[in-house]
């Protein structure tokens, strides 16, 4: 029977795919000539809600479908892949936005049924865990991960294999694997898309990690604002446990590993690994001083691998296809692919997984479609709210951790937010600072008081009350915060503001 695929990812649902689903279900009851497969999103949000139909030639797509369009589409021959305008997209794989990507981490997103372990196994899932349990020694697993060159995708770009190695080397009765799903950078959504679209890949990545480091307990810390991701994950964990994919006897190997899901209470800073661990322990989400690093003293004081969701979800393809294949992609120290999340004033925003090395301009033009007609690019902010504000001049930077760092910016978790000339520069600067003031955990003095004072100064400028020594004060605050803050939130909080003040037009000097 013909299969229809529909994304029930949070983004998709927010623009109507839930209504489309009800309409399809109604029709399914009456017609009964198609099966419905609920997937995650492919990340091409400008096409959603999108229905895909399996045809002998491949999946054919229908974009921007509304619930009321569904009967007509079915009547018009959608099940046969008919060319119905204006919805018809042709073969989904040929859509340039998708076709030009190199999907490894997100290979299954939007393609398989998110909650189905069978579907996951059918596309090669489980192979990595099987190898880890039965073919490789823990040392070999870690060696593979190291060889892949995989850097942590949470933002700090620390080599994943090295982190695992540290935990594996710790002699301890208890160790933990923690998946950081507290994706708080405004304009980022890769973790959420993955958790909702390919949850078993995450679980498999965690299980492989557990085998490698000798952990038997794992936690996924899901952002409080991601209820659906939590729901999908919980379902996946239940299914995995029932099937021996998790639990006291992984794939019959005798190795025990189980996963629990936890949520915070909506604090940005809990995405910082030590604050996340505090929160997991049931305490107030505040940053711990490092060292000791979590790999040595993490959750409940035990050695802990804490990796980003996308880092862990990249492990299964690496182990299945071999580290070398992954390492062959990318440039410099940044190997493999990165999932960039385009947001803001672009024509076709969405998630783009590409090998490192592409320039920012290529990303914005090729995938983002540039700014809207008649608009001028004002600024691009990469790496989340703490990242540098870049302007037109910087767009030829290659997307690569070290190149960004060398240019004073950051790639972070891969968020790219574009502002056009409708944005008032001073308001942007104030907004950026106010975000940090709002999200400061309040532990260290430079961040707690500094963000507040800096926001107040910017607010006074907005009100037209700039004082003569304000820039000196701001610079002093920025200097102290950069030099003395406890975590990256504080030390980077002034970075985008200072760069905005320096680079954008119409700022008080």
């Amino acid at each position: 029977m013909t299969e229809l695929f529909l994304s029930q990812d949070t983004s998709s649902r927010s623009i109507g795919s839930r209504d489309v689903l009800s309409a399809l279900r109604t029709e399914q009851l009456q017609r009964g000539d198609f099966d419905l497969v609920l997937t995650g999103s492919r990340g091409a949000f400008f096409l959603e809600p999108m229905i895909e139909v399996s045809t002998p030639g491949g999946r054919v797509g229908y974009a921007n479908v509304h619930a009321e369009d569904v009967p007509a589409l079915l009547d018009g021959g959608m099940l046969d892949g008919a060319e119905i305008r204006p919805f018809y997209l042709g073969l989904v794989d040929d859509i340039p936005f998708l076709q030009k990507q190199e999907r490894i981490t997100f290979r299954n997103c939007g393609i398989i049924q998110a909650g189905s372990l069978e579907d996951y196994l059918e596309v090669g899932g489980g192979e990595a865990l099987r190898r880890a349990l039965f073919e490789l020694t823990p040392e070999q697993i870690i060696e593979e991960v190291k060889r892949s060159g995989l850097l942590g995708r949470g933002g700090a770009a620390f080599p994943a294999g090295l982190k695992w190695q540290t935990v594996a080397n710790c002699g301890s009765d208890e160790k933990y694997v923690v998946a950081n799903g507290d994706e708080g950078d405004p304009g980022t959504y890769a973790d959420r898309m993955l958790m909702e679209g390919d949850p078993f890949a995450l679980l498999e990545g965690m299980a492989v990690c557990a085998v490698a480091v000798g952990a038997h307990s794992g936690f996924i810390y899901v952002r409080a604002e991601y209820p659906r991701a939590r729901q999908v994950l919980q379902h996946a964990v239940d299914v995995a446990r029932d099937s021996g994919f998790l639990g006291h006897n992984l794939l019959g190997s005798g190795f025990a590993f189980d996963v629990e899901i936890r949520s915070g209470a909506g604090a940005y800073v809990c995405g910082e690994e030590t604050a996340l661990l505090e929160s997991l322990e049931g305490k107030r989400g505040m940053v711990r001083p490092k060292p000791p690093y979590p790999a040595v003293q993490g959750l409940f004081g035990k050695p802990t691998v804490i990796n980003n969701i996308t880092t862990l979800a990249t492990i299964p393809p690496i182990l299945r296809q071999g580290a070398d294949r992954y390492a062959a992609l990318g440039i410099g120290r940044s190997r493999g692919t990165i999932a960039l999340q385009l947001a803001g004033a672009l024509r076709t925003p969405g998630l783009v997984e590409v090998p490192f090395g592409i320039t920012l301009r290529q990303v914005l033009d090729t995938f983002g479609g540039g700014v809207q007609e008649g608009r001028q690019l004002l600024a691009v902010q990469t790496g989340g709210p703490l990242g540098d504000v870049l302007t037109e001049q910087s767009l030829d930077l290659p997307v690569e951790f070290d190149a960004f760092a060398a240019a004073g910016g950051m790639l972070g978790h891969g968020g790219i937010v574009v502002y056009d000339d409708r944005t008032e520069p001073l308001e942007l600067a104030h907004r950026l600072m106010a975000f940090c003031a709002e999200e400061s955990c309040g532990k260290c003095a430079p961040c707690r008081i500094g963000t507040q004072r800096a926001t107040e100064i910017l607010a006074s400028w907005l009100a037209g009350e700039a004082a003569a020594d304000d820039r000196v004060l701001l610079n002093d605050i920025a200097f102290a915060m950069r030099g003395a803050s406890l975590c990256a939130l504080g030390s980077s909080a002034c970075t985008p503001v200072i760069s905005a003040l320096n680079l954008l037009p119409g700022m008080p000097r």
Partner: protein
Amino acid sequence: MPGITIDGNNYEAAEGTTLMEVARREGLPISSVCYSDHLQSYGSCRLCVVQVEGQRALSAACTTVVREGMVVETGTPEVRRIRRTLLELYLSENAGQYRPGGSAHAELNDLATEYEASPLRFQGERHTVRQATVDNTGPYFSFDSSLCILCARCVRACDEVQGQNVLHLEGRGFSTRVVADPGTFDASACVTCGACVKECPTGALSDKRVLEQSQRPLPAHETPDRTVRTTCAYCGVGCQFEAQVSGNRIIRMYPVDDSPVNMGHACVKGRYAFDYVRHPDRLTRPLIRQSEKPGDFREGSWDEVVALIASRFTKLLESNGPDAVACISSSRGTNEENYLMQKFTRICLGNNHIDNCARVCHSSTVAGMQEVFGTGAATNSLADIESTRLILAVGCNPTEAHPVVGARIKRAVRRGTKLIVIDPRKIELTRYADVHLQLRPGTNVAVLNGLANVIISEGLADERFIAERTENYDAYRETVAAYTPESVEEISGVPADLLRRAARLYATSGASMAYHGLGVTEHLTGSYGVMALADLAILTGNVGRPGTGINPLRGQNNVQGSCDVGALPNVLTAYQKPSDPDVRARFEAEWRWPVPQQPGWKIPEMWEAALAGKLKAMWIMGYDAAQTEPNTDLVRGALANLDFLVVSDLFLSETALLAHVVLPASGALEKDGTFTNGERRVQRVRRVVDPPGEALSDAEAICEVAAAMGKPMLHRDPSEIMDEIARLTPSLAGISYERLEDGGLQWPVPVTHEVSNHPGTAILHTDRFPRGLARFAPVEYVPPGEEPDERYPLVLITGRVLQHYNAGTMTRRTRLGEVVDRDLLEVHPDDAQLYGLKDHCQARVESRRGSVCLTVRVSERVAPGTAFTSFHFPEAQVNTLLSSSADVITRCPEYKVLAVRATPLRLRYDWRGIK
């Protein structure tokens, strides 16, 4: 040991220490406001950032662990610029305000001065003072959030030092604030230990008394002008304080950091409850009863009362023989005073009728441990709490009665030390316990024997220790064989499986340490309970090593010392027997008077003798027998039957009211001397303020009366008394005031030919027991003296609450008298329903002896069928309910078990009305 360089100088530091720890040790000034020696590093103020060579970013000294070869610069221009900005940011937050009464000095403001930080730079319109809240709801300290800089030292002290977790940080970022959960201190679980106040660098948390003092316009001579180090006079923990004194007024009791006893911590009583010193009720002149009516006094002079006492005592002794006069001295008094009192009794009265109030608390401990070990004192030190693997707490409630020890135990448990609690109530420690054996009151012996039964039957006994260092094991094994977990469950109500678990934990921890309190000793089988506990220790080899042993928590400050110096009817100093000719010879040579041999009366025997007319006169020093003795009506009858009663006290106590002469005494803050705490540590007590009016120390009073009786004891200074004690007592021979200057010595402190500066003894019985081998003392369970029946269905337990101390003579006369203003009857909700009792309502509680009125508190702290009350308030006279049931060996009263019934008061009156 890593070598590091700080600002060009080389230092050595132990592995794992932080740069800040090195700096503090070496006296290097690295700035910080969030760091405290008592707390874990927190790294929030960031003032301590330093430049470590080779590091791109700056490092916070408080969280940076030293590494070999580390080169550190603490004052680069960059660092100084950052510090100054940070200080200015802080000042913008609290406008640079400071008030005294928090930590030792104005930490933030001093730094601001040093760095020339301006409070105005980030101020003006942009300055947002956090919505100020002032919380004055606690009795002793105040919190003003507008001064707070969120260093969280208070929050961490509440958590890490006291384990109370009352203080929290609420909100995020700039709107973060410190709150006492659930909003104010009075509504919170705050125990007013003051650890938070001691940490506050700006005085946002501040002692009210310091604030009051600072707001009082002062004549020049009353400015805070001196500090005096002394020992707390409340419980037997023996915390060390620095009293801060202005003129003759105590402003603050500041717990010192260098004491191994309290390590800078304190409880509400020690730190704050000293208001009684200046209470208007204090006795300031001697009183003489002027009619037959008790309490009808006139004031007299010291000359007059001394002559009167001397003549009455002399006459009564002449006409009635040497048994006519007896003395009770006080575990509240100093060693020197207790020593003099027993010397007075033995020389001036010519008998051994001297006892002290340790009789009613830990006499069973002395007897029980004596039997097994050959000596009756704590085997180990408080410091062992840090090293032990398991703490067994039996019949004690340290978080209320010995709060500093309680806090130390909580800290240990949080570090991973195991805890077993044996107690009929769900006391606070049970929340921390691995196992709580909630036994029926009075069944200690059965439960302790049950533990031994499991240990033996599961092969967990330390066979080698038993073979090498004990005797009489076979008899013991035979006795405990009957105490199977199931049979113990029947007697005690403790589930057999829990008992097994506790036994395994205790026997296998590697180092198990027992603490016990009056819940063990104040029973018909008190001494037996102590023996059963000591038996357990030798059964498992848990004695004579660090982190082990049997450790009584002494109720009063000098229970240990008053007994050590011979204020007991059967022994002289350090338990030397007067029957021993060598001992007697030594004492007689020193005293130059004969030492009587016939053992004297214990306190209960004194009451009996008084009632029988044999005892004609008594001198009772610092002991409110008429309120605190059990079966109080009998005791009052005995006191009323005396021809002549002398009472020395701070206040006109219930006992003093019955006296013929009342002597105004000086309190522990008003005299010099020593106390010996529960771990055998002899510590100095120093005169902090002058006593009121004509009050004199008991030592002075005793010397006056002795002289008037023609047997003068010439002591100009308490140190001379200690020297005499040392001369007479081998185990205290090395003690002198000079040597105590450095913080106290734990006896035995012998002097030999080789060693003249013995360091004291932290752990007893390491090689041998005083009696050679330890002797197993097999004891059988005997039911308590009184068991519930149909008419009196509830078992009443009596004990202390945190805020008050014993008879409450002192604490009731402090602000704590308002915090807890009555004795409460705790009953289980089931019983409350059964007997119609409601929270906050009055109940009549009746025993076979008497009846009292108490306010009900319905609580699940007690088990169904049991009830609890304290005995701090004379209005309630709880002790009138008690029987004369007492320990079969030492006659330590059975305060802990009595059968009562409780009825709601109002219903009763209604019923009468109808009739």
